[in-house]
């Protein structure tokens, strides 16, 4: 009798990392002015015959920060989506579930209406604070600080609806803010700069490392609390750490790039479907695939109707939805 096969194979993770690097290179290379892979690599590695002048600026200051931001946001949303799905034992959970999106939306709307067009100074801070506040409110009103996942879920929905109502009201009173608010809601990475990349990288990498660090134990949360306890876990404490990390990642992603939908649900299920494994040991892989997915989506957003830009949220849903359905319909990977 042979031993059972491994539950998780780290070669999958390595494969996902290679995929991300390849797609990122492709995204830096493609644009109105195409730039060869070798020039990009030489420039990045500081070798001879790298790019000079305008092309160098184009790669280092425009395309590269945008690609990195897309990767960070994609990794943040898909990783936190996967964690929320585990913690709430609900395959439909997404990163915006606990009011993070609506809270951030309200914060962004306040920033846009208050600053009369000078949005980018205040917007990330306002939306970040709005998102975090909304989630903390959900925690607070659910009572006993997250003793029972479903109560928190419902509180999140209530807080989210409330924030959306306030946001809609403010938006109606300031009709000039409609367009910027709307375009923010659809998600955009046009504001990417090294400054945005550096602060969002700090929070997102901190949150993702926390989630990956606890990922093995998260499998215990898929069972009942008693079973989790018997396997040596403190389910209550683990859930709080997991949700806080996932919320930090989500709030940062939202404040850097607006509301990019669908990534948080599609990518985790895509990875689980293809690998046929539901273990949370796949979290790092999910983050890497999410990063690659969003870099690709952003590439589409800025090139498909070039020189015009599509909102990236439109791409993620337009491409993601049919692909997701294909995966769900595929009997080989079904997991009802």
């Amino acid at each position, binding site marked *: 009798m*042979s031993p*059972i096969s491994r539950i998780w194979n780290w070669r999958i993770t390595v494969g996902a990392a290679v995929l991300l690097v390849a797609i990122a290179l492709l995204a830096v290379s493609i644009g109105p002015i195409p730039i060869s892979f070798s020039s990009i690599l030489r420039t990045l590695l500081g070798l001879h015959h790298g790019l000079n002048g305008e092309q160098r600026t184009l790669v280092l200051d425009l395309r590269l920060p945008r690609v990195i931001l897309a990767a960070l946001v994609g990794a943040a949303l898909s990783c936190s989506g996967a964690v929320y799905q585990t913690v709430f034992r609900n395959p439909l959970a997404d990163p915006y579930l606990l009011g993070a999106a609506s809270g951030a939306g309200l914060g962004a709307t306040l920033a846009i209406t208050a600053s009369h067009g000078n949005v980018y100074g205040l917007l990330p801070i306002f939306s970040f604070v709005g998102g975090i506040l909304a989630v903390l409110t959900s925690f607070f009103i659910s009572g006993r600080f997250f003793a029972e996942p479903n109560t928190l879920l419902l509180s999140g929905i209530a807080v989210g609806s409330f924030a959306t109502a306030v946001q809609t009201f403010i938006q109606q009173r300031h009709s000039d803010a409609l367009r910027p608010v709307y375009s923010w809601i659809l998600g955009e990475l046009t504001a990417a700069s090294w400054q945005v990349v550096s602060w969002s990288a700090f929070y997102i990498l901190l949150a993702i490392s926390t989630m990956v660090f606890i990922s093995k134990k998260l499998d215990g949360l898929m069972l009942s609390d008693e079973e989790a*306890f018997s396997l040596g876990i403190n389910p209550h404490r683990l859930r709080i750490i997991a949700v806080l990390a996932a919320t930090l990642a989500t709030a940062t992603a939202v404040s850097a790039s607006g509301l990019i939908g669908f990534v948080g649900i599609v990518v985790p299920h895509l990875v689980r479907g293809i690998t046929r*494994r539901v*273990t949370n040991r796949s979290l790092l892989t999910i983050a890497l695939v999410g990063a690659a997915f969003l870099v690709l989506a952003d590439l589409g957003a800025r090139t498909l109707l070039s020189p015009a830009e599509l909102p990236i949220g439109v791409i993620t849903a337009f491409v993601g939805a049919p692909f997701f359905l294909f995966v769900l319909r595929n009997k080989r990977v079904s997991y009802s």
Partner: protein
Amino acid sequence: MISIKDLTVRYGNREILHDISMDIVDGAWTCLVGPNGAGKTTLLKALLGTCEYSGSITDNNEEVFRNHNRNVAFVPQNPHIPAGMTVAEYVMLGRSKRDGWGNESLSSRTFIADILQQTQLYGMQGQHVSQLSGGETQRALIARALAQEPTLILLDEPTSALDLHHQISVLNDIEILKERGVTVVSTMHDITLAAMYAQYISIIHDGRVTLTGPSETVIHSPQLRDAFDNRINVFTLESGRPVIVADKAINERGIPQTEA
């Protein structure tokens, strides 16, 4: 030995267990018997250490509440079956406390293969747990408990919703644990089966333990009939095995056995 002294459990204002004192013998199978709502599941959770109580429960002189030093397996009546999780993955979770989370050493995986063989699940390891039949799911739960190599296993109604054939096969799997020296505490609806497998039976009625002792003694005690409002009758087959049946069924069919 597990020693329970003056155990009281409250959910809000409701007192579920009142002032229970009893001992649980190491390496034996103790079955908690009583009607629905008597507090059996709560007692199991208190023994696990997840439910707040007053009084004391000590396992080898250590208080059990939120104590992670022990290795206790818990088999719930209504388990959460994670969607998409395979039998191998599910049973492997049982190793996590002993081997560390995410450990997949060859010895661990060989050990799991052995357990799957014992519980007749070998060959199904790639299937989703959610697609197993009721009996197979229960065996997967027991297999996970076996993988845990616990010193104590708590089972909440391990045979409910199973047909007789699967009841016996699950109970035999639990016996494997007992033979390895594991202390077994279970609740069970079917008192006849409880008497067949467990060495000790405790009767729980309205949150109180009314009698605890060797199965033979407890089965024939008046306290058992009291706990079920005198709606059961105990008969002894020629083999000496006790059979407990609902009162009404006896009156209608007149089963020709001698009353104990």
